[in-house]
């Protein structure tokens, strides 16, 4: 039996920021900014694509329990179970294919600033 370690030393050094972790962080920010009136939630499920490959699907949901439990899915993101990137996010008629965490954060920033998002938040807040 050989004592030789064939594993590369840096194999545990490269960590990828997972899309779900990024979504949850932003969901928590929404709750903090709204005094918990609008909660952000990430609902994750597993599906199979047309080739039978397992994919993770994350719904980014905005929910207002104190306003008749109003709920709206802002966007849905999909990526392969093994590979967190690319992650695909259709939003407002455009299909985004995002290849890394930085680009994902940039897209989220655009989604949160988007007129559609503002309208939804305004619609919730207006019921107050």
């Amino acid at each position, binding site marked *: 039996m050989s004592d030789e370690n064939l594993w590369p030393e840096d194999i545990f050094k490269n960590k990828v920021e997972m899309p779900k972790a990024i979504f949850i962080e932003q969901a928590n920010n929404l709750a903090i900014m709204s005094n918990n*009136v609008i909660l952000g939630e990430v609902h994750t499920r597993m599906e199979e694509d047309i080739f039978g490959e397992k994919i993770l699907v994350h719904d980014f949901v905005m929910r207002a329990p104190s306003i008749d439990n109003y709920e709206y899915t802002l966007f849905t993101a999909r990526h392969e179970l093994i590979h967190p990137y690319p992650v695909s996010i259709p939003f407002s008629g455009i299909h985004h294919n995002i290849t890394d965490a930085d680009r994902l954060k940039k897209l989220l920033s655009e989604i949160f600033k988007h007129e559609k998002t503002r309208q939804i938040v305004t619609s919730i807040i207006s019921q107050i």
Partner: protein
Amino acid sequence: MNILFWNTNKKDLSDIVVALANENNIDMLFLAESGIKPHLLLTKLNNVSNRYYFNRIRGCEKIHIYTRYNDRALKIISETSRITARELYSYKLKESISFICLHYQSKVNWDEGDQNAYSSEIQNFIKRVEAKTRHKNTIVFGDFNMHPFQNGMIQSTGLHSTMDANVALKRSRRIEDNIYDYLYNPMWSFLGDNSKGKVSGTLYYSPSKPLNYHWNLFDQVLIRPSLIASFDNSYLDIITKFSNIDLLKNGIIDNAYSDHLPIKFSLKI
């Protein structure tokens, strides 16, 4: 974990409730007959720090719940129009706890016979919750609109509560062919002047009628035997004063606030 229940009589007592929750470091706040829009109270409660959530309603509009736990942690088990059951996992006990809060029919609409007769439905609700959760770590509280000594609170087919923890610790008793689980009712300790607390009830009503208790102890907390060891008797109280607010006027309840006094209790969970 500190819990507060208050029937606020449909009044907007939001500033009072916020002061009450902050001063008593409340983790779970249950309001019956709340006259406050949930998002407004939530915003005020979270004005300093974001610690409260409004827990969603699934049928029981009569009770509003604000806690430090979101809906994933504090799960709805079952709800009717007057009773809600929530479940929370205790990392200290390594078991789940069921919180059942109710606002029972008032004596204005139902006489004692009606209340007693229908109390079996509360027992059925509790049984269904305990069957669903597969444990009996249950605490039942709220505005029962019944005296602790009233049949509906005592009878085996009703709440089956007892004033004595040692009796409750026997867990259950058999009557004919049926076994009935006990609930312990520590609120008996508030009855009379030489008892616990500053007042003998949570609602003062003194009509010019021959039968008159004056103080009515309608807001109560009942505990299953398995939680008695976790119940902090020293924290249990009927709140009459906090911050600079006195809920009493000339020794009776100041209706400028609510016609009920709040109760607070604590579980070491």
